[in-house]
């Protein structure tokens, strides 16, 4: 049996209510936890793109891709290893404003991490950081020492290093 690995799944679909149910059920039936999920517009008009991160064996991954592609509204599904994609996650930290002025160290952390201050008021300020999971985790660790009021992280979004043939497939349908 092969080992569990982190895979990023890209799914191009028709934009349709109910598809989330169908897709998540495919993972749920097999007891596979979805690490993160994101659905958005894609480069093609009226086509949605889903990015799902899961940890499983390649064998399981292949079977699941088969089941996903079987769904009527799914145009095409792909899976990629970490090396095959460029990806980002984004996160927000809410932190007491006092710290921003009193702790010099925090200002350094913000500068070095390339995080961005979204807003500041009397009570708190909000930091936004996009990057790889490890960068976000590092920043989280560093800020934890001072106290974080709220933290949230988005699902992964990713593009592949190689081109995808989805557009060609869609053109073929029109003829």
């Amino acid at each position: 049996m092969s080992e569990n690995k982190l895979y990023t799944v890209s799914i191009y679909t028709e934009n349709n209510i109910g598809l989330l149910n169908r897709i998540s059920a495919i993972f749920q039936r097999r007891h596979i936890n979805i690490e993160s999920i994101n659905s958005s517009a894609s480069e093609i008009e009226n086509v949605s793109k889903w990015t799902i991160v899961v940890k499983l064996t390649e064998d399981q991954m292949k079977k699941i891709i088969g089941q996903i592609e079987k769904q009527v509204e799914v145009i095409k599904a792909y899976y990629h290893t970490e090396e095959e994609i460029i990806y980002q996650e984004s996160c927000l930290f809410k932190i007491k404003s006092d710290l921003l002025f009193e702790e010099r160290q925090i200002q350094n952390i913000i500068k070095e991490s390339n995080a961005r201050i979204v807003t500041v008021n009397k009570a708190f300020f909000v930091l936004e950081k996009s990057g790889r999971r490890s960068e976000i985790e590092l920043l989280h660790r560093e800020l934890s020492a001072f106290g974080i009021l709220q933290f949230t992280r988005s699902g992964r979004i990713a593009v592949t290093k190689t081109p995808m043939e989805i557009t060609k497939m869609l053109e073929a349908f029109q003829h």
Partner: protein
Amino acid sequence: METKTIKNNEQSTSKTIRISGSEAVVRSLIAEGVDVLYGYPGGAIMPVYDELYKFQNEIHHVLTRHEQGATHAAQGYARISGKVGVAMATSGPGATNLITGIADAQIDSTPMVCITGQVGSHLLGSDAFQETDIVGISTPVTKWNHQVTKASEIPEVIAKAFYIAKSGRPGPVLIDITKDAQFEEFDFKYEKCTGIRSYKPIPETNQVDLQAAADLINNAKKPLVVWGQGVILGEAEAEFKAVIEKASLPSAWTILGASAIPSTHPLNVGMVGMHGNYAPNVLTNECDVLIAIGMRFDDRVTGNLATYAKQAKVIHFEIDPAEIDKNVKTDVAVLGNSKETLTAILPFLKENSHTEWHQKFKDLYQVEFDKVIRNDLHPTKDGLTMGEVLKEINEQSKGEAAIVSDVGQHQMIACRYADFNVSKSNITSGGLGTMGFALPAAIGAKMGAPERDVVMIAGDGGYQMTIQELGTIFQTKVPVKIVVLNNNFLGMVRQWQQLFFDKRYASTEMENPDFVAIAKGYHIDAKSVSKREDLANAVKEMMETKGPYFLEVMVEKEDNVFPMIPTGASVSDVRLE
């Protein structure tokens, strides 16, 4: 979803007319060639029923006595006719009652369209009276489903529903229509769907794979074919026969593959799987090339996967790419519709004989005959066996009846011993194993093929799960032959209790009512037999009766079905006793 449609053919109404959503439902069904549908009315679907009343000369609605019955009837109709079965129900409890039949149709790849009424769209999500999220509930057991909230969506969605249900690997589709959409008026015109952008029903066949498969088959010393329903669904019976005859391939079937070639065909070596025949099960683990055609390596077929056909090269002919390597790793996958792939491979196949290999099947058949079949078909003890009832039905029907079986011991006996000499003759719940399937499915089957004899075989347990459909039979006068093999037990469970639970017969013994009186209460001719000397005449009387007929046969209480592959065992460890 982007779709393609045919315009201006005879099925399409190119001119528009202003009608209600409910009338559009009925007109759309008629445009799809639906002549019969099964269902049960209720508040949220009443506008459609009102239209059905108006259109009753064009489309026949059968009132089943339970919505589950409607789905099974639609399945029986679809399985025997190859057309799409249609079932209809109201919202809430009506809709949820459809679920068992939908799940059954999904796993057995049966084309079915279910239409449910739904509360008004302004009430959606408010826990309104008889509101359930049927789209959510049915999602895992439908090929596709959709909720309609605007009348103008109806024709396109129904056209899509039929296209999806029927094309590629068939399956059930559910359309949920809110009550306001049923009332709303719009400009109706109907165009059949011929394509959906995101949906590719039939994968392309790769010529290299086809050639590789042909090479493997040509070089095989001990080939074995296992075919499934894909042959029947692809209407590839003739092509299949040509392929196995040319290369002289011993061929075994899964339950749903039964009847694609006649039982009497010399290359037909019987059924595989848990209660299948001895030879094909044992020789699965001896063949050098296993050719799977339109089947999905269900666990009831393969037993323990770790020991299944490990020595063999595996070729898989399949329409659904998700089935490839799902359970059994293949060496060559030939994707495509079975009719096309089998047609394409034929010229590449060499004529062959495999005489010695065929002899092995014959020898093992003899072993099974001596240990099992003789006792089942020619018993010497007093009690009637299920097998001899089937033998009698074969004789009286000349092996041409369609057999609709329920789930349990009688099902396995029916599959093992019924003669299937006409395609689409074994109508049974294969993948879900749904007790209660047979009686309503028999109604649908007889309506789907009125020219055929339809004989239903059920146990005393499963029969009582949908016994209320006797009312449907009485009202429609559909002449189905109902056979209940009564052993006063939930026989199949009792068999497992005997073999694996030290004979602790927990809740499997059944005290049964007077089944003949019940049938007669529904004005159905009925008889009960318990003696061997009465069997032949009773079956004859049943077959000769013009109308519906109920026959109860009291069979041996504690007979077992053998051969048997216990769960988790290897196919070659099949037990004969």
